[in-house]
């Protein structure tokens, strides 16, 4: 690998921008395709598929054997609400490879005894969230059930274009939440992005089961192509 390519790749990774390294495994020739340039690339379809699935793979194109090495940022999960569900959700998400942070201004909830080994921020969302660099590779869940905490957090998630946004609450609770967010200037398209009731409908009852339903839904949004995604939701 040329040092310039390696340097460029490391810069993309540090900035949490996805890129794919294309290597001709016979000649050793290489080029780096940044996500922003996918749509103009002759290998567009292959690049998009590999990025979506997060898998590196060998392909044949134009009589060449090419290896597509996918460098996607580590997915993050921001959990607003240090509640019982979060105690099950945090370790589950970590086992799936997510960098997890729990935010809750209520120190009785956000305590290290309740969340051993999980980064905790016991601050209000307006203070806690900006330093977390919430981005398009972040799944964001709001589970406090308290509008004072969940609502500003959701507004931040809209702004940062999180790939998944979920909020705890029944349809009725969610309808009220929609009204409040609209009153605070949220767009209809943003409100429509919230997965609520949160999680895939698997009949989850216990906090651990709800955590499974949430992670299953996040996985579906991350991995499925757009059409199948709608069917799963």
């Amino acid at each position: 690998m040329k040092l310039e390519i390696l340097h460029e790749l490391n810069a993309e990774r540090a900035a949490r921008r996805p890129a794919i390294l294309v290597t001709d495994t016979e000649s050793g020739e290489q080029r780096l395709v940044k996500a922003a340039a996918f749509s103009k690339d002759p290998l567009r379809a292959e690049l998009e598929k590999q990025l979506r699935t997060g898998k590196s793979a060998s392909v044949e194109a134009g009589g060449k054997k090419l290896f597509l090495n996918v460098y996607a940022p580590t997915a993050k999960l921001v959990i607003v609400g240090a509640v019982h569900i979060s105690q099950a959700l945090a370790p589950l998400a970590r086992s799936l490879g997510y960098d997890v942070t729990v935010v809750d201004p209520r120190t009785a909830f956000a305590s290290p005894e309740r969340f051993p080994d999980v980064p905790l921020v016991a601050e209000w969302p307006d203070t806690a969230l900006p330093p977390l660099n919430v981005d398009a590779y972040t799944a964001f869940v709001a589970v406090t059930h308290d509008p004072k905490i969940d609502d500003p957090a959701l507004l931040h998630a809209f702004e940062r274009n999180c790939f998944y946004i979920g909020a705890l609450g029944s349809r009725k609770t969610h309808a009220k939440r929609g009204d409040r967010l609209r009153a605070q200037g949220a767009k209809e398209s943003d409100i429509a992005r919230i997965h609520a009731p949160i999680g895939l409908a698997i009949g989850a009852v216990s906090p651990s089961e709800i955590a499974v339903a949430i992670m299953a839904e996040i996985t579906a949004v991350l991995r499925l192509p757009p059409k199948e995604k709608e069917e799963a939701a």
Partner: protein
Amino acid sequence: MLDRDEDILKAAEDWQKAGRGVALATVVETWGSAPRPAGSSLVINDEGTFLGSVSGGCVEGAVVTEAMDVIQSGKPRMLEFGVADETAWNVGLSCGGTIRVFVEKVA
């Protein structure tokens, strides 16, 4: 990728800039039950220090040896390891899979 390979590529860049000979070995294809998926990589310097992995530890020794040659010659190489590969490399994957590993110099 959900794997944490970050420090490997960072080390490759740092070692190269510090004047070391550096090679990168990457799993490009797997068949059967391979221990690490395609895209997993191992970085090696000319002192024999390495970081990362391309298998569960079964073939790393052989990859490091080959990488030393690649650092010398500058020519990339494709290695293949399988369970019945005794004639070629004298190492194999105990899990029964087969992997192809692309080894290239960082220059």
